[in-house]
């Protein structure tokens, strides 16, 4: 499924035989549903891969296409068309869910371009220090110690206001760091969307590192929130 349609290859519509762009759900000439594209999530919406998306436009297009693909509309259509409408609906839902979320969208686009993201890929790139937030290690370790203390205290029903305050302070700090990462990500989005191949490659590398850092911070904030709320 992960395939970027770089250039539109004209294909003939199965119904009216007029040639059309491959990346379209419906024939622009006769409006008949076309066989599934085999393209990426962006092409479902007629978009080129990009990171700065008009979310209102995306939602509008999602609803429009959902209506057009609705199985009820194909109740009296041929077997092929029924199958295609179901497959396209599933694809459309997946595509919308992925693209509307900024982080999922970024991860998806990076994977589309060959980046390896996620826990299973860690450790492969040990030479690249940008993947290890060494600046945070001490703080992360101390935070984990405090979390352990807090859990132990809660377990025996004890309150530790000082520890509680310290954890809340840490949470504020890490929330702030998350916001910084998101700001930096948006800068890289812009670079990727508008830059040439070299700038894109650099932006991709930065984004992979930023997403790692984000995941790391997110896990921490989640742990602190859970412990404080428990």
């Amino acid at each position, binding site marked *: 499924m992960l395939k970027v349609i770089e250039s539109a290859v004209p294909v003939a519509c199965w119904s009216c035989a007029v040639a059309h762009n491959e990346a379209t759900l419906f024939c622009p000439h006769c409006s008949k549903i076309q066989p599934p594209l085999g393209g990426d999530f962006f092409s479902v919406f007629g978009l080129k891969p990009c990171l700065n998306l008009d979310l209102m436009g995306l939602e509008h297009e999602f609803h429009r296409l959902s209506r057009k693909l609705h199985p009820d509309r194909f109740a009296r259509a041929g077997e092929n068309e029924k199958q295609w409408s179901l497959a396209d609906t599933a694809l459309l839902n997946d595509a919308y869910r992925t693209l509307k979320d900024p982080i999922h969208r970024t991860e998806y686009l990076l994977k589309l371009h060959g980046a390896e993201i996620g826990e299973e890929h*860690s450790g492969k790139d040990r030479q690249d220090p940008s993947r290890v937030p060494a600046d*945070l290690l001490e703080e992360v370790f101390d935070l984990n110690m405090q979390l352990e203390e807090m859990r132990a205290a809660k377990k025996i029903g004890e309150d530790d206001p000082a520890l509680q305050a310290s954890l809340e302070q840490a949470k504020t700090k890490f929330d702030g760091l998350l916001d910084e990462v998101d700001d930096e990500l948006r800068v890289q989005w812009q670079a990727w969307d508008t830059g040439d191949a070299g700038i894109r490659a650099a932006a991709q590398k930065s984004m992979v590192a930023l997403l790692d850092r984000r995941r790391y911070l997110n896990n921490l904030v989640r742990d602190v929130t859970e412990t404080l709320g428990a």
Partner: protein
Amino acid sequence: MAYSDKVVDHYNNPRNVGTLDKSSQEVGTGLVGAPECGDVMRLQIKVNPETQVIEEAKFKTFGCGSAIASSSLATEWIKGRTVEDALAIKNTDIVKELSLPPVKIHCSVLAEDAIRAAIGDWKKKNGVAEMAAVETAK
């Protein structure tokens, strides 16, 4: 995904959990982390200045079962070894011993990094640049 018996054993009965005095001249501290999963591992060694033998090793790891088992095993292995011998331990040895699945290999990498970081810290503290220099000095 099921953990191997050895991982479960180390997880339930971690060896050498604890802290050594960070400020001691004989103690080396390694603090490493995996950005992807949020694991952090601290491994400390106490080295005999005469023999270069690691007499004490302690760890504290926040992470998954495999990360805890990897660091627990690492402390077990480096205890009683000389610093140079300890550096010969490879993450693949840990993978083999604990039967870690591919997605958990990074836990063993972290443990190897922690050993190196602890030894590196000890060397820096004690002005040991190259072991070869020590050998010739003997």
